[in-house]
């Protein structure tokens, strides 16, 4: 779990550098799909085929792959639209690629209910991706329920990090 957290931090830093390079001064204008994943940072300077438009060759960075939710909710929040847009771009540009949508919840409530709530959250992300043009066959929905928390505390600070869908390229 610690390793995983560290990995997210590292990719966050990389993403920050990457977006910094192409800064337009507007945070939202930095399409997360252009953020480079850690394995391809060396290609940062290489021209892309479509005049600066992302080919979507690499999956969006981990930092741009988590969708967060409110308590007992599977409604997508406005702040998640960049993540969904980034993955929609990547998956539509790479129709043979696949992504796993892993739903998670906080520890409150029963494990059995939370298993279903996690699935409902991945279904919500799946629906958003499909309405952005992604094929259902590219998406696999799974749920970890409350079993895979990233933060171990028993308070809202931890719970808010745990209520999430992680989008993982396959």
């Amino acid at each position: 779990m610690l390793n995983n957290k560290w990995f997210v931090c590292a990719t966050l830093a990389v993403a920050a550098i990457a977006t910094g390079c192409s800064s337009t001064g507007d945070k939202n204008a930095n399409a997360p799909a252009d953020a480079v994943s850690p394995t391809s940072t060396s290609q940062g300077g290489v021209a892309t085929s479509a005049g600066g438009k992302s080919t979507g060759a690499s999956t969006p960075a981990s930092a741009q792959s988590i969708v967060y939710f409110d308590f007992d909710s599977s409604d997508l929040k406005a702040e998640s639209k960049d993540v969904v847009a980034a993955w929609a771009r990547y998956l539509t540009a790479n129709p043979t690629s696949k992504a796993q949508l892993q739903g998670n919840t906080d520890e409150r409530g029963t494990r059995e209910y939370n298993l279903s709530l996690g699935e409902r959250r991945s279904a919500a992300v799946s629906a958003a991706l499909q309405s952005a043009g992604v094929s259902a066959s590219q998406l696999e929905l799974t749920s970890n329920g409350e079993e895979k928390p990233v933060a171990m505390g028993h308070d809202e600070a931890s719970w808010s990090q745990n209520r999430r869908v992680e989008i993982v390229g396959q």
Partner: protein
Amino acid sequence: MLRRLLTGCLLIASLAAQADLDITVVGGSKRAQPIAVVPFQQAPGGAVDVAQIVAADLDRSGQFLSLARADMKGFDPLPVTEPQVDYRTWRALGQEALVIGQVQILPGGGAKTTAELYDVFRTQKIMTIEATATRATEWRSMAHKVADQIYEKLTGTKGIFDTRIAYVTSIQTGGRRQFKLIWADADGENPREIARSFEPLLSPSWSPDGRRIAYVTFEDGRSKIIIQTPATGEYVTFLGEKGINSAPSWTPDGTKLVVTLSFQKNADIYVIDLATKSRRRLTDSFAIDTSPTVSADGRTVAFLSDRSGTAQIYTMSIDGGEAKRLTCEGRRNEQPRFSPDGKTLALVNYNGSGYRIGLVDIATGVMRLVSDGPLDEGPSFAPNGAVVIYTRQGSSGAELATVSTDGSIRQRLRHTGDVREPAWAPYTKP
């Protein structure tokens, strides 16, 4: 990388586990009845001190307070047969009941205990108790059987000392969290591993004959329902559909499992025949339907549904039809479990500030809360219906707790790691 992490962590084992439960009685409003359990006449070399286990069982119930052996020093010799019982002295020591006995060692490591229970005030024998063990490993069980008979005679409620509990432990080992499904005696002794995995293990559920256990694994990151025979270690992957496979619950005749599957859309309840695997869909709603439990007569299924907008408990016929809402109290109600007599439903109630265990009288719909929260879940009835075991968040992690259904007696069951997902086995020995 991800795939490698997620594959193949399950190891089915019947090895003796190292772990144990530390059980303490943490409160009881009931007055504990003083009882003297005199050391039984027992040849040296016996597998266990039978009378000591009997006394510990009675103490752990919270309803009895056994006399310390140090306080029996005045008796020389200690009574073994009826003519040696001196009621006046036991009364002077404040004792209300007295147990004496002897253990006869049988060839092959077995034993036979013959004990007698006396009413100190009425100065009379109440009952003679017999229990046997066919091998050395059954001595503890023999002692629990003696305690069960004493308990039933004095309280009118069937004892639960000679029963078993399954639970899941979770221990951080070398940067990974390891889960074990354990099966132990009700006093936490004799723990044995049913399964071990680096992925979570969930929802253990005993078959009505106590020989098999169904549970949920997450090998490859996907849920599956396993059915295993703990005594032999044999197991089958019973269900591994796309989506969720969870919340197995047996019908009382042991021929079907009621489960949650989501392969057809979202979480719905299905009845699966164990022999033919033929399945019948019980619910078909856009809501989450999960955590089914079947009534003692096999006719009714209670389950969680959030079709009203929040999680509440509904009942319906096992043959299908209309779902009827049962719970109205509290903001949410989850994880219903029928009592062995089918008259009460244990569940998890959320009132806005905490999750607590509630008991609903099915006839009246009245709910009583019997735990303190704030993160209680996973209720499971003891086979006598008088005690519920559940998971709570303790000061050092998840622990188990029991509460008598009248709310008067509580236990904490702690483990070196997190322990949760308790399932009390039925009376029949697994």
